[in-house]
């Protein structure tokens, strides 16, 4: 019981420390280079393997190689929305400014991944299905995801006071979470042009291992890209918000007072 309480206390202190902008700025600055290293370590072999080593598909030929950018960014576009809503919830309940800032910095990255998903999917659809775009359940719900991201960004920019802006936009992020299961299950609930789920976490994936491994490398690379980018953006925003405070003065001028 005592060890449990001390573990809980330990976690709590750790959690609170990240809530301090100065601590966040310093620590994330140390982590970011490692995250970029992880990204390149996965993305370079993943891209090379996917584009030049993986075999062609029996039906689609080489056009399926778009999967190595399309699927990782599609998953990432959904995961970022969930992360954004999670930080927004923490910000809403505990009023932690770092969490609010993290949530707001998720939106542009998520929107970018959604754009890449839509464009790469469209460029894959033309040589396989014979069309760039159709209003089926999967494509429409992914487009709705882009509009939700744009809504969060727009709402945040429309309100001047940053903390009120983050709370209002965070509410939209929380409500928008209902779109995530719709995107995922659209290919099961309704008939769609888009095919069903290939890679499943539980059970067997219906993709040859020589194609699955580069896909998983790229999926991992997308996670590192997001983490590094999110921390950089959040650092910048915190620096501007706290420009009158002492820790910023120390950081910018490099002096300990």
């Amino acid at each position, binding site marked *: 019981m005592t060890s449990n309480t001390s573990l809980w206390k330990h976690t709590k202190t750790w959690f609170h420390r990240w809530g301090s902008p100065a601590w966040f700025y310093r620590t994330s600055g140390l982590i970011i280079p490692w995250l970029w290293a992880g990204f390149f370590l996965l993305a370079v072999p993943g891209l090379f393997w996917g584009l030049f080593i993986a075999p062609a598909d029996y039906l689609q030929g080489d056009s399926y190689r778009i999967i190595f950018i399309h699927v990782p960014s599609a998953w990432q576009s959904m995961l970022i929305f969930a992360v954004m809503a999670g930080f927004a919830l923490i910000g*809403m309940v505990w009023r932690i400014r770092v969490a609010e800032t993290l949530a707001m910095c998720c939106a542009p990255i998520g929107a970018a991944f959604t754009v890449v998903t839509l464009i790469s999917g469209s460029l894959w659809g033309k040589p396989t*299905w014979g069309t760039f775009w159709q209003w089926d*359940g999967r494509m429409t719900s992914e487009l709705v995801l882009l509009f939700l991201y744009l809504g969060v960004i727009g709402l945040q920019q429309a309100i001047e006071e940053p903390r009120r802006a983050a709370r209002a936009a965070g509410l939209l992020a929380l409500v928008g979470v209902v779109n995530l299961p719709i995107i995922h299950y659209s290919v099961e609930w309704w*008939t769609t042009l888009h095919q069903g789920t290939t890679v499943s976490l539980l059970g067997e994936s219906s993709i040859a291992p020589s194609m699955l491994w580069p896909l998983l490398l790229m999926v991992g690379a997308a996670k590192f890209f997001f983490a590094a980018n999110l921390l950089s953006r959040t650092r910048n925003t915190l620096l501007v918000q706290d420009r009158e405070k002492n820790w910023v003065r120390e950081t910018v001028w490099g002096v300990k007072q």
Partner: protein
Amino acid sequence: MTPTRKRRLKIALFILIGAGSATSLMLYALSDNLLYFQSPSDVVGTVIPEGKRFRLGGLVQPGSVHRDPDSLTVSFVVTDGQQDITVNFNGILPDLFREGQGVIANGSLQASGQFAAREVLAKHDENYMPPEVRDSLK
């Protein structure tokens, strides 16, 4: 957790549940309209007025494709294993159009009970494998 935080958490969960149930009800009510295509079985049992546009989807029955040697006109049978419908199309088929593979035709039923397609799209499944693996599966 302080009472204020508990209250805020409750409000947030309430919003999430509210938005979730509202959306589920809406999707449930609209579910028929959210279908991208109808299967031959959906079509054969029901009365669809002649000339009404809809999408018909299924597999191209192997051996059923007939191409007119002088034009782009092509006819094939779309099946879902239970019911078959003959589709007539005049135009360029997508590259992935194959016998035994998925297809979605956009058009309408004719008086003859055949389907006149204005557009044909190929639908592929979620399986990816190299040709050798495919051959060994056969």
